[in-house]
């Protein structure tokens, strides 16, 4: 039996491939294999002989099976190793190209400021780009002869001959939405109105269309001090800085009283803007307490309700925050610009995760 064992273990060890191994298995422990045949002979043995030969044969069979399995695994590993040796890739080759999409900075900035104002309880209202002159001017305390009308560089829509109505205008601000929101929702009210607006002006810092967000808050006891706080909080949150200093300067808008232009403390260093430090002041927005006539035009009693309104350029905010130099490029759709200043689809601004990366 030791001879058998020695022979087969040696054969297994020397087997060159799976076929040879299978042949050894058959001749050893196959149905008609040498070990199997010997086990059949057990029946003819005396009980005493069987008691000795049985376990020995079983042990031999197990040993051969184990050796076969081990050798088989070894051969498979060797074969795989051999295959893998030929499977070499130049992994420095580029991948299949995939297009990188992007969001426009105006969309991103709009979502950022929506997130901030939502936190303060402001909902989002939108309106029409073509407006009646009543909503764009009269309701905002800018009557027909008011010099502010001439200063607005308004685009007017063509009127067909015989149509004697005053021409509609391309809204010069999103303020008409304030009136419409008052009409629709009444007071108390907190709403922001983002969207495209128009002025007939085109140079380095002006485009005939740009984007604005207006805010309106009405209640019985809202004051200009609340306005200042809201703007401070907004600017801190939007520009992601710990501290800002705002300067309110008396000014005039027909639709607010008192009115203030708001400057932000900043510094310019090598063309880089830093918010909240330095010795420069930069005008960023106009604001004030809503004029009683405007509140009345929105169908709300100005003796009961008061509140503030402000307007900021969205494009301008994006320029300042993201260091974009030229307003005109916003609307030029240059692929290089869109890629450079655009945002990825998963850059969703949130207050809990941060507005920007």
């Amino acid at each position: 039996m030791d001879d058998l064992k020695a022979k087969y273990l040696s054969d297994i060890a020397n087997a060159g491939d799976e076929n040879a191994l299978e042949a050894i298995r058959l001749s050893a422990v196959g149905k008609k294999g040498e070990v199997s045949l010997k086990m059949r002979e057990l029946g003819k043995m005396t009980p005493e002989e069987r008691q000795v030969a049985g376990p020995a044969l079983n042990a031999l069979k197990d040993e051969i099976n184990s050796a076969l399995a081990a050798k088989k695994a070894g051969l498979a590993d060797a074969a795989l190793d051999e295959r893998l040796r030929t499977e070499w890739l130049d992994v420095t080759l580029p991948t299949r190209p995939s297009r990188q999409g992007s969001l426009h900075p105006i969309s991103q900035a709009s979502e950022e400021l929506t997130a901030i104002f939502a936190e303060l309880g402001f909902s989002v209202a939108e309106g029409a780009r073509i407006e009646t002159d009543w909503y764009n001017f009269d309701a905002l305390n800018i009557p027909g002869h008011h010099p502010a009308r001439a200063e607005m560089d308004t685009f007017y829509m063509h009127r067909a001959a015989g149509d004697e109505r005053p021409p509609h205008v391309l809204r010069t601000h999103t303020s008409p939405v304030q009136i419409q929101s008052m009409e629709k929702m009444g007071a108390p009210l907190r709403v922001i109105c983002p969207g495209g607006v128009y002025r007939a002006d085109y140079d380095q810092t002006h485009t005939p269309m740009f984007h604005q967000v207006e805010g309106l808050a009405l209640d019985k006891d809202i004051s200009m001090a609340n306005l200042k706080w809201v703007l401070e909080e907004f600017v801190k949150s939007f520009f992601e800085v710990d501290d800002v200093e705002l300067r309110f300067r008396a000014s005039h808008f027909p639709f607010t009283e008192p009115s203030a232009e708001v400057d932000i403390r900043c510094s310019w260093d090598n063309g880089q803007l830093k918010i909240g430090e330095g010795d420069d002041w930069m005008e960023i927005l106009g604001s004030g307490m809503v004029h009683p006539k405007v509140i009345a035009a929105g169908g709300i009693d100005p003796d009961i309700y008061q509140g503030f309104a402000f307007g900021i350029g969205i494009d301008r905010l994006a320029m300042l925050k993201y260091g974009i130099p030229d307003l005109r490029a916003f609307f030029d759709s240059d692929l290089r610009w869109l890629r450079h200043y655009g945002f990825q689809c998963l850059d969703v601004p949130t207050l809990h995760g941060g507005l920007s990366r």
Partner: protein
Amino acid sequence: MKFTLSWLKDHLDTDASVDEIAETLTDLGLEVEEISNPGDRLKDFTLGYVKHAEKHPDADKLRICQVETDEGDLQIICGAPNAREGITVVVCKPGMYIPGLDITIGVGQIRGVESFGMMASERELELSDEHDGIIELASGAVGDRFVDWLEAHQPAKVDPVIEIAITPNRPDALGIHGIARDLAARGLGTLKTPEFAPVAGTFESPIKVTIDADTLDGCPLFTGRLIRGVKNGPSPQWLQDRLTAIGLRPISVLVDITNFFTYDQNRPLHVFDAAKVTGDLRVHRAAGGEVMKALDEKDYTFAGGQMVISDDTGIESIAGIMGGEASGCTDDTVDVFLESAFWDHVQIALTGRALKINSDARYRFERGVDPEFTIEGLHRATQMILDLCGGEASEVIIAGDVPDHARAYKLDAERVQSLVGMDIPESDQRQTLTRLGFRLEGNMAHVPSWRPDVQGEADLVEEVARIASLTKLQGKPLPRVTDGIPKAVMTPQQRRQQMARRTAASLGYNEVVSYTFIDQASAALFGGGEDAAMLANPISSEMSHMRPALLPGLLQAAARNQARGFMDLAFFEVGPAFHGVEPGEQHNLISGILVGNTGPKDVHGAARGVDTFDAKADIEAILAAIGAPAKVQILRGAQSWWHPGRHGKICLGPKKVLGIFGELHPKVINAMGVKGPVVGFTIWPDEVPLPRKSGATRAALGQRDLQAVERDFAFVVDAEVEALTLVNAASGADKALITEVRIFDEFIGGSLGEGKKSLAFTVRLQPSDKTLKEKDIEAVSAKIIAKVTKATGGTLRG
């Protein structure tokens, strides 16, 4: 509005510096746009004394001067003819910047002799064009600053000029006196009122004035008088200096005096040459069609109702806006008729706008001048004419009356706190208003005649807060709307736009924002471009019509980028398009285009030309993202800018179009200057129905443990038969059992013959209660075959 510091100091007694004044003005709402301080560039120059001068050994015209300065004696070579011993000069030491030469002077060698700096001429210091010699001063000590010397002897040369922006509500600040009043109210000095005494007339004015009854509402008051025997000509230097400093061209003393009061007191005046006025003056409304040449030498044709001033021969002045050339003053004028009138701001604004005249007078009258100052202005101007031109004044002619402007509002001291949030004692509030010219009677504040903008209690609050300074305002938290966690604020439509944007970006599209007005030709290609959609005053023909769709803007973007060498493009836009020109006749669209290849050529051979199925995949992904139902119809027959055979309308019923995808028509692409083909899509997001259910709960998941079975079928059908017809037919064979029908092969022509194609599909069967047996599968297969055959007229492929 421009003024000089010295002019301001005629009205304000103050020691404040220019910078303090400028800062205060801005804070008061009179925003400083520019300060130009000519003294700034001269501040380093000091006086020197030429102790000794001798001829340069090698040059006849040069002198070697020994100049005593605050830093010791300097040797300076000078070529000026007046450079000589014993004069006081302005020294430019080495290292100093010479503004008129735009150089920094250094130590030099002139023909072998060293020179340390220079002595300046007026031109070199930008004081005048004088360059015949160096500046020679009659006084001054060595080391004195030249600016100080100028301030003491020629103040106009170093008078700082301040330019401020005036908001439309502040006509009073269009006069320097009004600006001084604001500064004084803030406490930056004391308001000075230049002495005033009415000038009595010595004879009756030969020119009389009447105002037509129908014009009294536009011209409630007209005052004037004749001044005879004047001598016109150039103004005295001080007056010329003042006007020049603020950017006005001196013309003649009579005209300059009217300009002086326009700026000094916001009191526009007019002077007629009395010799050119025939008969009396009449203020009336134009009949319409009259023509007058104005002082700007342009002819103006009047519309009926516009206010004018006529004499017996015709119109001589556009009332309150601009005088006529014919009756204007010249250097030869001897008798002058001086006008000081009050005009209604609305009528001046409308006439000025209609005639397109921008004059200082119109600018002021349409904002509102002080009606009470009408006569005082006349007297003050008379006095100045008599002082500067001589002559003799007639009695004053007055037509009409000072209009009633009296009004008073209650000063509620608490209101400043409740509206602005600043705590200002009532006594301070009253003092502020008093300093601004309000008259307080109890708690009623009577508005001064020069403040037409003050029209209510809120204006009083504004004045008090403005003078107190809004910079002192401290922010105060805005209370939350609810005590709890804020609710979502976006509407479903707003959410959809956001989802659409981010999905499109994830699919590799770059978002663009384009102008909502485009050129007529491009608009017309996409169903727009009609006159109604036109702007009355576009800034260019490229931006003349409201866009009927987003695709033209995207194609223009593609053309621009192709011109820059970028050929593989994927752009999208989300925004409004216009189906009419009434407010609200706009709708939101989401459009995208793909141009060129799916990517640059690559080692894996993956890049290929974009095709309609790329556009379809993307529109389906975006529609899914914004919550459109999965089961839709795909119809044909979209507008002419789509390829007639390669597009589909994604519909819920024939009239409910959610979107269109496909290839754009080659002719349209060509007309837009784009190298095609271009595929793209448009979605009408507001057409996608809002989900009916409320709440976030999902339906229970019907997960089956029984094994699903798949079976393949292939049918030969006519080439025009659409795959969706076949899929719908197969799906309908057993709605409970069939969970999916998926086309996996299309084969056209070949052995099938002309006009035929083979479509192969897999049907997935998912039993719910018992395992499928072969006969069950055969039964459902038979139903599928029958349904598809009936729906398509095709035959099962053996």
